[in-house]
């Protein structure tokens, strides 16, 4: 499977395609709004107001962007290795569970957060191991494996949340993450800022790995041309394992960020409602960001803005907030066919 990547052809083409996809998302989302009797302009105004309208809205937006950037990295490092890894969703759950579990230990601030992040990352990476084994030794397509693991993780973490992590005082949530194990709120008075900085640091680490290390180079080689990679002596299983483990760890960290790096609730809620869909939305962020860490940071902020608009869209525009997800779906669908943009350009020229 070939995915659109940076390089080749016109330099700006990928950027234009991403922008075109975003416009298509707003356009068809707008049509849907009109058909169902809503005012699209008002909706979009509040969508962006929710992300950018005030200082607290901005920190909320940043808090949304952080996990999206991390799950987008999961998908992107997979694509770079020639994989379609959609396992981030389940890895977010186990990562969140791991980060909360760390609060059963008493450790000094700082070290405690580090411990929680290690647990979360390890839990996410562990979730990726079956995908590797089944792909490398049984030839099972990673799409099927990761989806089944996502559901397994969903019910597994629900169980763990109730049996192991439940808050004795409040049955609707797990215990809260210990204050020593939360992200510090040193900027703009919110933990979200440091969570975002952390996500950006992870993105930077992925950049360093992919472009500055031999192992990352081998991963990209296998993803772009497995035959040439093999001819050069690269064993294709190693990059496969790296991509899945690193991706799993990143998604696990996204789970940690959700419970230890958001202003509220520092816990998992019933039905895992506060960690749902970050894995799937990360796919959109990665595609719009062209599977490049830098692009992902920008796209993560964009999707974070959209998602931060959910309460304002619901409250002020009185439009169900899921319209945001609808728009994201249309954007991803448009990305699937670069030909659409080429035809659009062609028709503009005529």
């Amino acid at each position, binding site marked *: 499977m070939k995915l659109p990547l940076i390089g080749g052809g016109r330099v700006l083409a990928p950027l234009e395609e991403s922008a075109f996809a975003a416009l298509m998302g707003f356009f068809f989302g707008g049509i849907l709004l009109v058909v169902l009797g809503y005012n699209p302009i008002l909706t979009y105004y509040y969508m962006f107001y929710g992300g950018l309208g005030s200082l607290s809205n901005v920190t909320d937006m940043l808090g949304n962007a952080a996990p999206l950037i991390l799950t987008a990295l999961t998908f992107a490092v997979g694509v770079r290795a020639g994989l379609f890894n959609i396992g981030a969703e389940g890895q977010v759950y186990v990562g969140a569970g791991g980060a909360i579990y760390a609060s059963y230990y008493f450790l000094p601030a700082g070290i405690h957060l580090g411990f929680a992040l290690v647990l979360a990352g390890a839990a996410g990476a562990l979730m990726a191991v079956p995908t590797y084994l089944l792909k490398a030794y049984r030839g099972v397509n990673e799409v099927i494996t990761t989806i089944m693991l996502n559901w397994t993780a969903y019910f597994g973490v629900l169980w763990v949340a109730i049996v192991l992590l439940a808050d004795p005082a409040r049955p609707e949530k797990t215990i809260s993450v210990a204050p020593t194990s939360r992200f510090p709120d040193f900027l703009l008075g919110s933990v979200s800022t440091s969570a975002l900085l952390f996500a950006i640091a992870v993105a930077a680490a992925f950049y360093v790995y992919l472009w500055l290390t*031999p192992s990352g180079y*081998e991963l990209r080689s296998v993803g*772009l*041309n497995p*035959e040439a990679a093999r*001819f050069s002596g690269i064993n294709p299983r190693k990059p496969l394992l790296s991509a899945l483990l690193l991706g799993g760890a990143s998604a696990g960290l996204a789970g940690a960020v959700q419970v230890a790096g958001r202003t509220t609730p520092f816990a998992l809620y019933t039905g895992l409602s506060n960690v749902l869909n970050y894995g799937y939305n990360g796919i959109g962020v990665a595609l719009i960001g062209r599977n490049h860490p830098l692009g992902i940071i920008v796209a993560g902020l964009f999707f974070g803005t959209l998602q931060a608009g959910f309460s304002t869209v619901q409250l002020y525009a009185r439009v169900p907030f899921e319209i945001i997800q609808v728009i994201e779906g249309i954007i991803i669908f448009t990305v699937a066919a670069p030909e659409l943009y080429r035809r659009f350009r062609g028709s503009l020229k005529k």
Partner: protein
Amino acid sequence: MASPTKELVKTSNLTKTYPDGTHALTGVDFSVTKGEIHGLLGENGAGKTTLSKILSGILKPTSGEIYIKGNLVRMKRPSDALGLGIGMVHQHFALVRPFSAFENIVLGTDLNPTGERAKEAKASIADLAKGVGLQVTLDSPVESLALGAQQRVEILKMLYRNVDILILDEPTSSLTIKETGELFKSLLKLKEEGKCVIFITHKLREVMDFCDSITVLRQGKVTGRISKSEASPITLATMMVGRTVEFELKRSPMTPGEEVFTIDNLTLLDREGKEVVKDLSLKVRRGEIFGIAGVEGNGQTELAEAIAGIRRIAKGSIRLKGTETGGKSSSVIRRHGAGLIPEDRRQMGLILEMNLDENVILGKQRDLQFRGSLTSIAWRKVRQFTSDLMKKFEITAKGPESPARSLSGGNQQKVVVSRELSSDPDFIVAAQPTRGLDVAATEYIRKLLLDSRGGGKAVLLISAELDEILQLSDQIGVMYEGRLIGVGAAETMSRERIGLLMGGIVA
């Protein structure tokens, strides 16, 4: 002068230029008359396949006309050709492998292969098959049939559609001797029935034995059209390989040194378990180029893959400087002192989406010379290395950051060759090193190989280009159907003799 109606197929001034600028055909006038077997002869890249693809509606000509049974036609898709009575049997069969022979034969017609009329159809196909001697078991899945039987299914598929013109692309390349004999018997029967057969091949003997007239192509142009009575293997070989302008390449006399590379009794199998390289042995010494000539598809690809460590070895051994390298991975073989130039530079030699910096370190990404702090790749050192290579090997590109895809074929190949030579290997294997390159790049690459020889390296050259083999080699062998035949010192090998050997005639 033949009357126009007798000419079943006629092309006039047919030209095909591919989007990348390759001139596959230039002003080709070609005609075939009713009731003849017509040989279309030429080397790899001479334009045979392009011509046949145009005649069967797969490719559209850039310019020129095609007349079928006297009428000017424009074909848009393969089924148009079929509708006009032209059927093509490709070298790689267009068969649906899990389908039965019968289902393949009737595919796309209005017959339901499992319906009521299927029985009658089966009987009539069986009759048809019997009549022309193309027996197949109609109910077996095609993938379970031998290649010869699969080919018979393909031919029956065309005959079932009542084609008058049958085009066969290298039909004997995958057949056993017995199967070849049977095929020709059938083709002769078809000829008697008034059908015409266009027979594309590089095998001189087959052309001499079975064709009524022959058209020879070279470099996209018709170099001759002669009848069987006028033809002899020597005249055909000359027309086929021609005499191209010799490059100014001096091959200074060298005394070969010690033996560096040895293959003993190597046998390789394809996926179906058929022997594609049979009991092959050779030795290459320092300061010597061993040239393996032969038409592509006679086992050269598989041989090169085995040497490079990406194909399993069934029998025999491959040794480099005394160490067994058969079955080792490419990186190990390179570390033992081999430079590996693959035949398909775009698929195996380069990663086209990556830039030159990234391509020149493919396989060397863990080398100490490119190591930065910790275990990172020091791209600054790589950049220096790329610039040096670009300068030394005259690689024309916008810069080290341009993607390999943006380079011309010649410069792409220079990137591959320079990378492989940069590690100063003792042994170089170069597979089809100048395929598809322009004259200047071809000359440059050949010069590099000669320089390597001069530098005391052992070179194994695998090439379908006769000129290249003759210009460069000290020792020459020809690959034919998986065997290395007629090995001898270059001085003892004439162009005509190699041409005959390439056609399978051991003189």
